[in-house]
């Protein structure tokens, strides 16, 4: 009977079984049984039940469901597509299995399991193709998990899945079509899917643009209310950022399509400042600024950036951004990002720079925006990130902007001092900053000033005219001389490195500046002192490097105007005092340092801490340009030239004598004299030759010595190499061992899996054999049971009949007994054996006697 029961339950589905076996069976076993059912069941209902059960287990037993059930479920996608319900379970199941995040109560060790399962799915492109086909299903219940599942796949294995989608016919278009879904929730989910889809894949990004992606997303942004919209706006902007990242074609498309103009409402400040800046708005705004920056990034091809800069100005976004910079109540991070955006919107673009130069803050009296920015720059109470960004903005304003540079330098020149009292000029702010006690102020001011000179010979000369009167009684000194003085007195690396970078950019390609610098008797000694003094840390080493670079520039651009430091003298000085190698080493310190490489990469400096303020991008560019040239200059030998000139003068003097003396005696005596001197010279030469021979021998000895040494070293080297090789081999061995161990572990894991699979196969075989028997047995059972039922019924009937018969019999007996008594009473003899029966019946049916009587 128990066998029959379980047979029934199999037909009823997994729910019942789970309950009955849940106590003792592990999750893995249950999953195994369900997967088995999913594969073997011929009835759709059964498969659906199994799939539903697997889905509900897939959160708790994700590894088991994935490892055992994945293939079955993936097959289902191709087979049972007509049944929406089973598809929903299958998709939800895959959604859980591929989740990139840990599901509830999951062991952190299984992190990355979602990626592994995604890999299995994406190995067969037809799986993705099946999912794409399912996208045509409009039902909400299936579309939502399906979109999420595809997002999971793209998040876990972006490259593989992107490539498959890209070559699937209309794959990208089908995903794009989801954006038109009228149900807002689905639309929002599909934006997330598109973000994952477009990440770092230019081809897909372009197809999205071709499929009117920008239009559709902009429409969503507009419907959601621009920056006042919810997180959907932020998602839309993230998608924009993906579409525009390193994609010149899309950037051009964006500009050509006039999309820049459609962004304008984003930058309108609310009329009522009381509305404030909720977190989401700040975030939306931040993303929007980033979109603009991506269009005008200094890393884009310059023609793309310039064209976008023009668009930004033409449609008024530059103006809006400047208003934001100067407005009150803007959150700090928004302000910082807005300044960086303005910076890039004008970098190298003359019109925009000119516009920016004219912007004035609505203060009383109105101040130019540049002055406002400089006030922030030299205010150490402002956040560092803001000050760095302000520096970036100033740099971008002055970049290739001769007029802007001139305006700044002009405020430093004596003629401008007549400006009305109370007004602050950029020159004043920069000078105060340059010599302030606050180190970051020094650094920021020095770097800002260096940008006022960049690529401009005129400004380099103009700045030489700047006079400073530090104390009331002392005579005014030039800015350059004062800088040298300050450098000599300073002990702080940050100040030195800032000022030295400023000087480097001043001296670069400017003979007047170099002349002025070398004329100061303290300049070169200071530099040599810097280079030769022992360095205490990394930053000091960099100061040494920049000092070496300044000397290098003096050498490379030397105008030979200052006798003490002419090119030759300078070379001699370097040779005598610091040696060439020290100088080149110093330069190497810079080019090797991470700080240098970091600053070289992007014009904007992102400093987390004030000690990160070391190198400026423009200095790094100049350094990169001249480093090798300076090294070349240093290695060029100048000595042979010198001796060659000496020998020529000897011959000339002899010819001179021959021509001038005419009388024979005189001539003879002269000749004699000449011969004598020649003899003397010969003697001298012989002596010299002897000396040289000695020296030669000495040198040869030395060479031999060196050769043996070289050989020794060579053998040592060979030995060392051999050592290294063995070491490397050992290391490789170690690594190999480790990887073997890893592999072993993997093999063990796989063994386990294989065991499981074998077990499953075994089970499957068993179930196969039982399942072949089953139908007959089941049929038999049913037949038997039916027969059984009939029999039982018959039995019951018969029992009833028997009872009735018994009753009748008793009645008959009673009647006979009564009749017998009547007969006896009437004197009719009755047979004995009948009496016996009667006796029996009298004891049995005594009570019924009355009944019989009454009946009679």
């Amino acid at each position, binding site marked *: 009977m128990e066998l029959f029961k379980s047979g029934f339950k199999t037909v009823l589905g997994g729910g019942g079984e789970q309950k009955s076996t849940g106590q003792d069976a592990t999750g893995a076993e249950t999953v195994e049984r369900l997967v088995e059912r999913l594969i073997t069941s011929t009835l759709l209902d059964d498969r659906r039940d199994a799939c539903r059960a697997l889905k509900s287990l897939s959160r708790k037993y994700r590894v088991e469901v994935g490892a055992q059930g994945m293939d079955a479920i993936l097959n289902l996608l191709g087979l049972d597509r007509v049944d929406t319900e089973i598809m929903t379970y299958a998709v939800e199941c895959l959604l859980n299995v591929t989740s990139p995040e840990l599901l509830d109560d999951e062991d952190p060790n299984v992190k990355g399991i979602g990626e592994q399962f995604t890999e299995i799915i994406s190995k067969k492109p037809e799986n993705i193709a099946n999912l794409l086909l399912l996208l045509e299903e409009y039902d909400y219940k299936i579309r939502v998990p399906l979109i999420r599942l595809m997002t999971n796949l793209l998040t876990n294995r972006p490259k593989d899945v992107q490539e498959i989608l890209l*070559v699937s016919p209309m794959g990208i278009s089908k995903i794009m079509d989801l954006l038109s879904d009228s149900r807002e929730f689905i639309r929002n989910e599909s934006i997330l899917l598109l973000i994952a889809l477009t990440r770092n894949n230019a081809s897909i990004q372009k197809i999205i643009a071709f499929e*009117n992606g920008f239009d559709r997303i902009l429409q969503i942004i*507009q419907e959601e209310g621009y920056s006042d919209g919810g997180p959907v706006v932020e998602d839309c902007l993230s998608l924009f950022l993906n579409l525009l990242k390193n994609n010149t074609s899309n950037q051009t498309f964006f*500009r*050509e399509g006039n999309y820049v103009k*459609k962004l*304008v409402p984003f930058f309108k400040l609310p009329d009522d400042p009381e509305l404030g800046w909720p977190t989401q708005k700040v975030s939306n705004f931040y993303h929007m600024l980033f979109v603009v920056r991506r269009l005008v990034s200094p890393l884009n091809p310059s023609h793309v950036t310039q064209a976008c800069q023009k668009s930004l100005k*033409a449609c*008024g976004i530059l103006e809006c951004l400047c208003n934001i910079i100067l407005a009150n109540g803007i959150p700090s991070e928004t302000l910082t990002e807005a300044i960086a955006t303005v910076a890039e919107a004008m970098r190298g673009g003359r019109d925009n720079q000119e516009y920016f130069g004219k912007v004035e803050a609505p203060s009383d009296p109105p101040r130019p925006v540049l002055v406002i920015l400089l006030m922030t720059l030299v205010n150490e109470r402002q956040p560092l990130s803001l000050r760095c960004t302000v520096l970036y903005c100033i740099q971008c304003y002055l970049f290739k902007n001769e007029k802007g540079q001139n305006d700044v330098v002009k405020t430093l020149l004596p003629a401008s001092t007549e400006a009305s009292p109370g007004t602050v000029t950029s020159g004043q702010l920069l000078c105060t900053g340059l010599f302030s006690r606050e180190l970051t102020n020094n650094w920021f001011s020095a770097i800002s000033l260096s940008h006022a000179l960049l690529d401009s010979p005129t400004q380099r000369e103009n700045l030489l005219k700047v006079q400073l009167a530090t104390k009331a009684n002392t005579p005014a000194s030039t800015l350059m001389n004062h800088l040298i003085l300050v450098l000599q007195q300073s002990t702080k690396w940050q100040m030195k490195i800032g000022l030295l970078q400023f000087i480097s950019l001043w001296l670069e390609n400017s003979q007047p500046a170099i002349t002025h610098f070398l004329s100061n008797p303290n300049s070169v000694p200071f530099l040599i002192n810097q280079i030769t003094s022992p360095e205490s840390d990394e930053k000091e080493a960099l100061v040494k490097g920049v000092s070496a670079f300044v000397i290098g520039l003096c050498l490379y651009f030397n105008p030979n105007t200052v006798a003490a430091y002419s090119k030759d003298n300078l070379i001699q000085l370097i040779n005598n005092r610091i040696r060439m190698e020290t100088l080149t080493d110093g330069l190497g310190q810079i080019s090797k340092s991470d700080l240098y490489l970091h600053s070289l990469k992007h014009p904007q400096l992102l400093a987390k801490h004030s000690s990160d303020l070391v190198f400026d991008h423009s200095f790094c560019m100049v350094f990169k340009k001249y480093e090798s040239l300076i090294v070349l200059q240093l290695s060029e030998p100048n000595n042979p030239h010198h001796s060659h000139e000496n020998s020529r003068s000897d011959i000339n003097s002899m010819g001179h004598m021959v021509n001038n003396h005419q009388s024979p005696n005189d001539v003879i005596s002269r000749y004699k004299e000449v011969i004598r001197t020649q003899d003397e010279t010969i003697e001298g030469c012989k002596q010299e030759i002897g000396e040289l021979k000695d020296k030669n021998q000495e040198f040869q000895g030395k060479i031999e010595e060196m050769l043996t040494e070289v050989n020794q070293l060579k053998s040592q080297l060979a030995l060392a190499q051999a050592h290294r090789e063995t070491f490397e081999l050992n290391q490789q061995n170690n690594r190999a061992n480790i990887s073997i161990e890893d592999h072993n572990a993997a093999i063990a894991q796989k063994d386990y899996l294989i065991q499981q699979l074998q077990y499953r196969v075994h089970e499957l075989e068993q179930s196969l054999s039982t399942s072949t028997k089953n139908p007959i047995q089941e049929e038999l059972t049913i037949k038997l049971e039916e027969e059984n039922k009939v029999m039982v019924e018959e039995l019951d009937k018969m029992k009833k009949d028997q009872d009735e018969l018994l009753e009748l019999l008793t009645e008959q007996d009673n009647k006979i007994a009564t009749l017998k008594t009547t007969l006896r009473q009437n004197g009719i003899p009755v047979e004995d054996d009948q009496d016996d029966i009667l006796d029996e019946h009298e004891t049995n049916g005594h009570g019924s006697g009355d009944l019989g009587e009454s009946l009679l």
Partner: protein
Amino acid sequence: MSYAYLFKYIIIGDTGVGKSCLLLQFTDKRFQPVHDLTIGVEFGARMITIDSKQIKLQIWDTAGQEAFRSITRSYYRGAAGALLVYDITRRDTFNHLTTWLEDARQHSNSNMVIMLIGNKSDLESRREVKREEGETFAREHGLIFMETSAKTAANVEEAFIGTAKEIYEKIQEGVFDINNEANGIKIGPQHSPTSPTSPSGGLGGSQGSGCC
């Protein structure tokens, strides 16, 4: 600048036939003898006038290499016009036209206007495909035909504008459903009767009218 219509084009054909050069000549009016291989798809745009209406051409220049074929197929569906280009100095590029055409017909909408272009007409001395052959092929397959030179700019304008005229006529005849953006045609912002104009959008639009 606003436009009455926007047409999307694609340029297809074997690698090295001068697709990118045709686009560069049309959009920038210049010729670049050494051009990098197009990777995937590149974009270009220009405004033209037909029937005193401003029409914006959005042109997608595809890579001719086989490796990019599956990517470039994504562009067929949404295009209103296609320039199918071969090189008159390379017979094989002409021989491949049938394949290209089949591909285009299969993946595009049926109304897409296709113009056949024999490029490099300046290299007459190295000609391998006769003009008549191109004409015959075009007639047999219902295409417009033109020989061009991206180097000398001969017929380049005509090719792009001719295609646009054909599309424009089809619009006038009502062949194209202009409200379906999948056809590669868009109605300009101010011409669109269904375009929603929110107050803020209208404000921005009027202020930034000078934008490119």
